[in-house]
């Protein structure tokens, strides 16, 4: 649609046309829709809220036809753990690099910025709140990754060099944390860990894994002096630097809320008991 409206495909030409479009306030539905569709496409791939695919509704949901379900937690839960790890890391890095390149060499104007600001805030809020209600191990990790995408989008939304720097730092640290978390979940597959309650005796059976998992989840929660705190620090300061005074406090509040969800896994693994053994009925 952008090509249809502008006739240009080269980034340099698009930069001049789109910057002029933003500055002069010209109205072009083709350009606006094109920018919107590009943003939606990027945000869908990185599992940002609210761009999620509809799936077959669950029988218990009476208004299922009106509710959009998230593809990320369902796909993360249903896929083999190495595939889940790959899906939660690689698309985020590649799409972030892609859109950073498009925006740096092309144009990044108010239209795109408003969309990304909204999606950052929505992702942060949903990632923190939805993770609280989960009972399986992979789903809170999926929701944490949705929340982290919101934090990382904050850095990009700013449109400043500090924002891009914070984005790169955030991506690197997020990749390391996610590799760590899914490596431990993958190592526990022999003990058939599916629910959070199954982690109950991890501190007794494998204390090193339990400590590593705890440190990783604390990093996800953004507790200093771990790396997750440093990435959020840079991201929120970049947001404040560009004048996004609402976005930074929302990020801080959702981090605090997410501490409960992210802290649930180490709490259960360190202090929980072994899972109950099912007894055969008395004959």
């Amino acid at each position, binding site marked *: 649609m952008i090509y249809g409206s502008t006739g240009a495909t080269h980034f340099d030409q698009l930069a001049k046309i789109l910057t002029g479009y933003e500055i002069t306030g010209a109205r072009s539905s083709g350009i606006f829709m094109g920018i919107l569709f590009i943003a939606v496409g990027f945000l869908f791939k990185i599992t940002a809220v609210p761009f999620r695919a509809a799936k077959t509704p669950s029988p218990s949901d009476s208004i299922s036809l009106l509710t959009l379900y998230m593809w990320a937690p369902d796909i993360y839960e249903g896929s083999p753990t190495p595939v889940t790890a790959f899906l939660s890391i690689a698309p985020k890095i590649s799409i972030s690099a892609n859109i950073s390149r498009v925006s740096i060499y092309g144009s990044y104007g108010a239209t795109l910025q408003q969309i990304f600001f909204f999606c950052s805030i929505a992702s942060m809020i949903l990632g923190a709140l939805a993770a609280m209600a989960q009972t399986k191990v992979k789903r809170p990790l999926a929701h944490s990754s949705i929340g982290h995408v919101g934090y990382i989008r904050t850095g990009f939304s700013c449109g400043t060099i500090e924002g891009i720097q914070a984005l790169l730092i955030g991506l690197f640290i997020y990749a390391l944390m996610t590799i760590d978390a899914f490596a431990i979940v993958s*190592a526990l597959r022999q003990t058939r860990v599916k629910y959070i309650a199954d982690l109950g005796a991890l501190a007794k059976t*494998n204390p*090193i*894994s339990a400590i*590593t998992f705890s440190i990783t989840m604390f990093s996800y929660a953004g507790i200093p002096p771990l790396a997750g705190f440093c990435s959020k620090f840079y991201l929120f300061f970049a947001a404040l630097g560009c004048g996004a005074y609402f976005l930074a406090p929302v990020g801080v509040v959702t981090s605090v809320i997410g501490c409960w969800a992210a802290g649930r896994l180490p709490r259960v693994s360190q202090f929980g008991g072994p899972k109950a053994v099912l007894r055969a009925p008395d004959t």
Partner: protein
Amino acid sequence: MVWSATMVGALLGLGTQMYSNALRKLPYMRHPWEHAVGMGLGVVFVNQLVKWDAQLQEDLDKMLEKAKAANERRYFDQDDE
């Protein structure tokens, strides 16, 4: 600087290998040659990291100088006209 980087790298490599053994519930010093390999890799990694950081600082200073010169040419020279 080189000695401290070497020591840190060796400790990092040794610690990583011991951690790897602990994670797999093996004795910490099982297969000691792996610890030697880890120490070697750690030394190489940290020394290269220190060199890369120094190079990065130099490159950044050059970029900032170029940008400053370009800005001065663009704005200050116009004021003289």
